[in-house]
């Protein structure tokens, strides 16, 4: 699969475009502007860029204050610090207050790689999911990330964008119509459904190809929006394919798999298998090696599909 730019880079570029279109767009960072790519915005709009220094809690408060005065505020840091370092600030000043703050967290997931566990946010979706009122988007590639940035800017209220460090495999060709809260069906199939987001969408497509060569027709859904979740697409997958695999670059507890399970269990119970990081911490290593070591590859998805199908009643 061809590599495109990192989702964080698509975010940074889209911010610049938004800055040109709308003088109300303001960007904050916590001393990571070169890494989160907000520097592109800072260079063109220094007046509308505020660095909090290494102080994520204060950054979130400043973001809420700017938003309460009518600004469309993007606040960026690494996903380990945002939400990890400022959860209570997100809870009070953003979620509870309903301020128009867009949290764009980069370097999410295990594919941060060599920096190791301290910098690998594998619990961030669970943390944000626990806060009512924040919409969550986990884009799979550069086009999805650019769309996510725009949709966050144009919809009032808090958003969490989960962005990655490495270059992302290209999933989309530019003709797709993304819609908030609507999963995208990338492959149709009737034997099972793989629901994935972020980096795992590429693995899901590769897994579907392997299954197809074995005569198993697998549906693939890109569940880019985790909140609000696309109940309709999930129930349809349960009803029509009878078995589901959820693949995410995140801990098993509290992430996309949990979100999907809640819908399936409430609406139409079918077997679900999870491709996620079991309860453990990350470690240093190259991103692809880590994906293999932590069970997050197409191969792992294929065996999860087989297990899910075997469990069908």
């Amino acid at each position, binding site marked *: 699969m061809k590599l495109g730019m990192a989702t964080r880079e698509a975010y940074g570029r889209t911010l610049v475009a938004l800055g040109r279109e709308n*003088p*109300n767009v*303001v960007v904050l960072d916590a001393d990571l502007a070169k890494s989160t790519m907000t520097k592109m915005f800072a260079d063109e709009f220094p*007046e*509308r860029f*505020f660095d*909090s*220094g290494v*102080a994520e*809690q*204060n950054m*979130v*408060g*400043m*973001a*809420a*204050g*700017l*938003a*309460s*005065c*009518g*600004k*469309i505020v993007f606040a960026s840091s690494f996903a380990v610090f945002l939400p990890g370092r400022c959860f*209570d*600030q997100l*809870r*009070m*000043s953003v979620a*509870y*207050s*309903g*301020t*128009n703050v867009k949290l764009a967290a980069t370097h999410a997931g295990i594919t941060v790689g060599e920096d190791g566990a301290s910098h690998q946010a594998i619990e961030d979706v669970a943390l944000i999911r626990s806060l009512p009122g924040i919409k969550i988007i986990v884009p799979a590639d550069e086009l999805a990330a650019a769309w996510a940035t725009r949709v966050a800017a144009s919809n*009032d*209220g808090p958003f969490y964008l989960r962005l990655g460090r490495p270059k992302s495999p290209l999933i989309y060709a530019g003709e797709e119509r993304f819609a908030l809260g609507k999963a995208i069906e990338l492959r149709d199939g009737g034997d099972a459904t793989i629901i994935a987001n972020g980096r795992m969408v590429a693995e899901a497509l590769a897994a579907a190809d392997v299954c197809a060569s074995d005569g198993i027709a697998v549906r693939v859904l890109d569940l880019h929006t985790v909140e609000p979740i696309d109940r309709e697409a999930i129930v349809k997958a349960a009803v029509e394919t009878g078995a589901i695999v959820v693949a995410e670059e995140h801990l098993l507890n509290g992430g996309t798999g949990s979100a999907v399970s809640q819908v399936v269990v409430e609406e139409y119970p079918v077997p679900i298998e999870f491709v996620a990081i079991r309860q453990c911490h990350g470690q240093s290593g190259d991103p692809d090696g880590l994906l293999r070591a932590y069970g997050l590859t197409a191969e792992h998805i294929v065996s999860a599909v087989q297990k899910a199908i075997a469990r069908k009643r």
Partner: protein
Amino acid sequence: MSLPYVGQPGTPTEQLTDGADNPQNGTKPGLDSLPASTADLKRIALELRRQIVIMIGKAGSGHPGGSLSAVEIVTSLLFAVMRHDPANPKWPGRDRLVLSKGHAAPVLYAALATAGYFPKDWLNSLRKIGSPLQGHPYARSTPGVEISTGSLGQGLSVAVGMALAGRLDRADYRVYAVVGDGESDEGQIWEAAMAAGHYRLDNLVGILDYNGLQIDGPNREVMNVEPLADKWRSFGWHVQEVDGHDFAQLLSALATAADVKGQPSMIVARTTKGKGVSFMENVVDFHGKAPTAEQVELALRELIDV
């Protein structure tokens, strides 16, 4: 249960680029009849104290000590200094008040009701299910509350953001933040202090309700915050120290703060926790304990004369 979601924050306003014809600027008087004398302010302060005691008594829980210590601070701001319009709480040109020590919500509610932001009978519903007056300030249900607070240390950061927005819009409103001394244990206060100093936010004024007590005891025993004034100075703030129950001193300090250029202002206001009710003054337990019906009666008997 549905709370009235009035005054939702985050509603985009028009982009403003020029100071001269900027609708966020101007001298629109909030209250047509700002009290002319400290006698008027004292009368309002007395009334707020009575309301605080009554509403917390009715609620059966709440924080009387830190509400009573901040009465003159909040009265000075809302009834003498701030430019605001109770009939139009979201007027873009308003001065902003952030109660960073959110547990003192009763003093803010009493002042907002007295100023006319909402009917006084709302005060009777404090802390009850479905009430627009939550135990701690909730911006989406209470007109005049700018941001939800109650988890200490966060309001000052929000005030910094508001001040940055004002500067960006070339608006001439001011942002006032009331901070607690116990709250000053929070690291985020000093993150915000550093940022306000760094950005030289001369449209930001902090008032520190320095009553010397926090939940577990006196500041100096629980966690020494001294030297407080020096700390703020070292973070680049203009600092004044006043008696926080003396209107003349408060008003003079607030006027000076308004003239400070190139740096944020902190007014360290020495106060007495539980001020005005003899059996609450300097009593640690009345930080977060409601008076009994009998104690309410006793308190009201003391709160009769200016």
